[in-house]
C-alpha cells in the first residue's frame, strides 16, 4: 500500500464514517433519553434511500401506505395512553398529529411523485414521509414499555427492526435501487479526486452536528431532552413527560436516518435490508463511545469508517468481521477501567 492508496482509503473511510457518525449520534440520543437501543435506525436509512429512489422513478413510494398505517396505529395507542384525560381537544390534537399530518404528506407525495419535481423537492418529500414514522413507532412499540428494563426494550427494538425489514420487502420488493448523486462535480485535490457527493455528505454531517448542538444548548425543548436523559424523575417533576421526550428523540433519529439514506443512495445500491448493516456500524461507534458521549461517538464513527475502508482493501473477505471485532478491545478496556456499577433500573 503506498501513500496515494492510503490517502484514497482514508478519504473513503471519512466519507463512510460521516454516515456512521450520523447514525451513532441518533443512537446515543435515543438511548440516553429513552434507554432504547434503536436497532431499527438502519431501516430509517433504507426507507430514506428507497423512498427517494421511487420518487426519482416517478412512482408513489411504498413508505406512504406504511406511514398512513403507522399513523393509524399510533392514534389508537395515543388514545389508549390518554384514556384517563381524553376530551375533545386532546382527541383533536391526536387526530391532527397521527391522522391528518400523514394524510397531508401522503397527498403531497401522491401529487408530486408523477411530476418528478426535481431532486431537492423529492428529498424534502422523502424526509417528510420517513421522519413522522419515528414518533409513531415510539408511540406504538416503545411507550407502552417505558418502565421496562433495558433488555426488554432491546428485545422490542429487535422486534421492530424485524417487522420494518419485512414491511420493507413487502412495500419495496427485493430489487435494489440507486439514485443519481447530489452533485456531479468533482475537484482534484493533490493525487485525489474529491467528488461533489462526498463534499455534500461531509458538509451535511457537520451541519447536522451543529444543528444538534444548537438544539441542545439553545432551545428549551433540547434542554428538556438532556434533562430527561440526566434525571428522568427530576424531568417529570418539571412536567417534562418521558413520552414527549421519547417521541421527539426517535423522530429526530428517523429524520437523521432518512437523511443518511438520501446521502448513501447514490453511492451504493440499497435493498430493503441494507440498512441493518449500516446501522450496526453506527452502533459499533456508539458503543465505543459508551452510548453516552456525542463527540466520542462521532469520532469513533470516523474511525470505524477508516477501519472498514482499509480492511476492505487489505482483506476484503473479512471486512465486516474486522469492523465488528474492533468493538472487542474497546469493551475489554471499558470493563477493566470502570468498576462494576449497580443497575439503576
Amino acid at each position, binding site marked *: 500500500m503506498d501513500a496515494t492508496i492510503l490517502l484514497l482509503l482514508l478519504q473513503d473511510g471519512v466519507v463512510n464514517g460521516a454516515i456512521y457518525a450520523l447514525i451513532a449520534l441518533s443512537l446515543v440520543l435515543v438511548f440516553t433519553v429513552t434507554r432504547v437501543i434503536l436497532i431499527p435506525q438502519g431501516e430509517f436509512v433504507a426507507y430514506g434511500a428507497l423512498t427517494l429512489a421511487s420518487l426519482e422513478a416517478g412512482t408513489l413510494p411504498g413508505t406512504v401506505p406504511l406511514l398512513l398505517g403507522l399513523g393509524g396505529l399510533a392514534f389508537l395507542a395515543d388514545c389508549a395512553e390518554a384514556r384517563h384525560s381524553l376530551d375533545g381537544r386532546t382527541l383533536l390534537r391526536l387526530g391532527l398529529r397521527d391522522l391528518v399530518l400523514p394524510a397531508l404528506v401522503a397527498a403531497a407525495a401522491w401529487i408530486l411523485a408523477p411530476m418528478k419535481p426535481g431532486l431537492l423537492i423529492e428529498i424534502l418529500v422523502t424526509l417528510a414521509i420517513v421522519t413522522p414514522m419515528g414518533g409513531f413507532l415510539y408511540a406504538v412499540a416503545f411507550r407502552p414499555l417505558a418502565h421496562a428494563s433495558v433488555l426488554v426494550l432491546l428485545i422490542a427494538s429487535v422486534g421492530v427492526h424485524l417487522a420494518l425489514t419485512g414491511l420493507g420487502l413487502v412495500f419495496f420488493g427485493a430489487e435494489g435501487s440507486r439514485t443519481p448523486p447530489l452533485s456531479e462535480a468533482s475537484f482534484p485535490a493533490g493525487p485525489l479526486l474529491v467528488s461533489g457527493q462526498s463534499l455534500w455528505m461531509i458538509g451535511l454531517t457537520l451541519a447536522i452536528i451543529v444543528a444538534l448542538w444548537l438544539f441542545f444548548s439553545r432551545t*428549551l425543548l433540547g434542554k428538556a431532552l438532556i*434533562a430527561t436523559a440526566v434525571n428522568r424523575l*427530576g424531568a417529570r*417533576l*418539571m412536567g417534562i413527560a418521558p413520552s414527549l421526550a421519547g417521541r421527539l428523540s426517535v423522530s429526530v433519529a428517523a429524520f437523521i436516518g432518512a437523511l443518511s439514506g438520501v446521502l448513501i443512495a447514490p453511492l451504493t445500491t440499497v435493498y430493503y435490508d441494507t440498512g441493518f448493516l449500516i446501522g450496526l456500524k453506527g452502533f459499533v461507534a456508539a458503543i465505543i463511545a459508551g452510548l453516552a458521549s456525542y463527540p466520542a461517538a462521532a469520532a469513533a464513527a470516523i474511525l470505524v469508517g477508516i477501519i472498514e475502508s482499509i480492511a476492505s482493501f487489505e482483506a476484503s473477505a473479512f471486512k465486516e468481521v474486522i469492523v465488528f471485532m474492533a468493538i472487542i478491545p474497546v469493551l475489554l478496556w471499558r470493563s477493566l477501567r470502570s468498576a462494576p456499577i449497580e443497575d439503576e433500573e
Partner: protein
Amino acid sequence: MTQPMLEAETLSVAYGRVEAVRGVSLTVAPGRLVTVLGANGAGKTTLLNALMGVLPARGRILFEGRDLTRLPIEARVAQGLSLIPERRELFATMSVEDNLKLGAFRFRHTARGKDGGGDLGEMYRLFPRLAERRRQQAGTLSGGERQMLAMARALMGRPRLLMLDEPSLGLAPLIVAEVMRMVARLRDEGVAILLVEQNARAALQIADHGYVLDGGSVVLQGDSRTLQGDARVVETYLGSLSVDEALPGRTASGR
C-alpha cells in the same frame, strides 16, 4: 375552614405486600402551610410521592375538586402541583440557570415561558447565591445551595401547592432556619404548602396545621400550636430543647 385545595381520601400505598401508607386522609386549605411529622419509615415520603403520582396509590386524590388519582406526574404538574423530593433530583450535569429554565417548562407555550426572564430575575433576587453560580453545574453545589436550587426550580413552575420532602435534611442549623423562613414566606405569598419534616420543631414553628404519621397511619392531627403542646408530640418528636434554640432568629409563628 374554606374549601380544601388538596384532599386525600383514605390513601393507601403498598410496596409489594407491605403497606407503607394505610388509609391516610388529609386536607390542605388554600394558602395554608400543613406539615406531616413522623419518625423514619413512618410513610411520610411515600405519602408525598403518592400525592404527586410518583407512586401508584389506592384511594382518592382531589385537587381543587378535580380527581388526580389516575393522572401521571406531568398532568399533576400542569394542574399546579409541585414536589421537591428528598433527593432534590436536580439535573446534575446541567448549569444552575438551565435547571431554573427547565423549572418553567410547563409554560413553554405561553408568553411567560417565552420570556421566562422575569421569573428568573426574581429567583436570583430571592436566592443571590444561585445568581453567583448560574453557570456552574448543579452537581457541584453545596448541600444548602442544592436545596435553594431545588426550591427556586420548583418556584419557576409557579406551583399553587408546593410539597417539600425533608428540606432540612443534611443542612446546617442556620441554613435550616433560612429554608424554613423561605417556606413560611411562600405561604405568606399565597402558595399552599405541604411540608414533610423530621425536624418537627422547625416545621411546627411555621406550620398552621400538622399531621403525625406512625406506621403509615395518621395517629394525631391538629392546629400546630396544639401539637406543640401535646404531651405525646413533645415527648416523641420535640424532646426537651426550647423552641428558640432550635430555630434561631425567629420568634413565634406569625399566624
